[in-house]
């Protein structure tokens, strides 16, 4: 019975952080919350008696995937910055009539 309650609590945490990840305005917060979904999922796996799957989920889902997403986000921001720099340097060629 106690295990069922713990599973429900962890599942509610999963749903809450999933909704939070979608609703959040900041991409960094979304990435961290989707890592939180995986962390809660690994707790659920552990409670259901699957420690092997729980380890995989914790290491890959909440660890590595989060890092890869954060790297990709930093990289795309860098690309955005470079784009805007180019636009600032050559305003005459791009701003004509587009805005």
């Amino acid at each position: 019975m106690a295990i069922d309650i713990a599973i429900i609590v962890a599942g509610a945490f999963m749903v809450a952080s999933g909704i939070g990840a979608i609703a959040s305005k900041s991409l960094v917060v979304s990435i961290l919350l989707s890592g939180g979904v995986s962390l809660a999922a690994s707790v659920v796996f552990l409670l259901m008696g699957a420690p092997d799957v729980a380890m995989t989920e914790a290491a890959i889902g909440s660890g590595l995937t989060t890092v890869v997403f954060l790297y990709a986000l930093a990289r795309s921001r860098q690309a955005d910055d470079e784009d805007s720099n180019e636009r600032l340097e050559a305003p005459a060629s791009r701003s004509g009539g587009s805005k």
Partner: protein
Amino acid sequence: MMRKVMVTLAIIGFAFALLPLAFRAGVQAEPGALATEYLETAPRELGAANVVTAIVVSYRGFDTLGEVAVLFVATAGVGAMLTRKRLGPAAVGRRKPATEVLRTATGLLTGLIVMFGAYIFMHGHLTPGGGFQGGVVIATAVLLNVLAAPESHLAHGVMTAVEALSGAAYVAIGLLGAFLAWGFLDPRVMPTGSIGSLVSAGTIPLIYSAIGLKVGAELSGIIEALKGDRP
């Protein structure tokens, strides 16, 4: 408006379809017929204390080989795409240096984390975990070092050699099983030993160590490639 109605309908449909699963999920008291079969035969036939590992490496070993191949192709794709030539030279440079805390902690933790990863994949036949989990833990140590010293480089040649050798060892052990035992990837090439000791379960520890080294090298390569200064 129309789109929102469709999305809501789709979500309700999914919820309706998955509702029976939600009620059936939970802790099962009695294992099913297939699970009972595995639980009874795996320790007796293969001498593996962790039945999950016996299934992953031996009974479903061919699936695991495919999984490793998929991971290899994914790594090769990431490595081919994320080069300095494609990302441009601007991707490199102007990095903030790591703080003292991070650098000190990295120095202290790297050895321990690598050792823990090796422990996980070497004890895959005894305790939960195995090659994939241990490999990811080792890649975490590489990630720490990349964060602490962004200018440093992974020994690319060593990583490639480790990956190639462990992949070849995996397939070679599998082929030995086909010739000396009952089939491809059969672990009974070596004696199964007594349940619970480190040297037991035939070649399962060897196979899982090869997988752990391969996964660790591949994921470290992905982290290194994401840094973006590979030539």
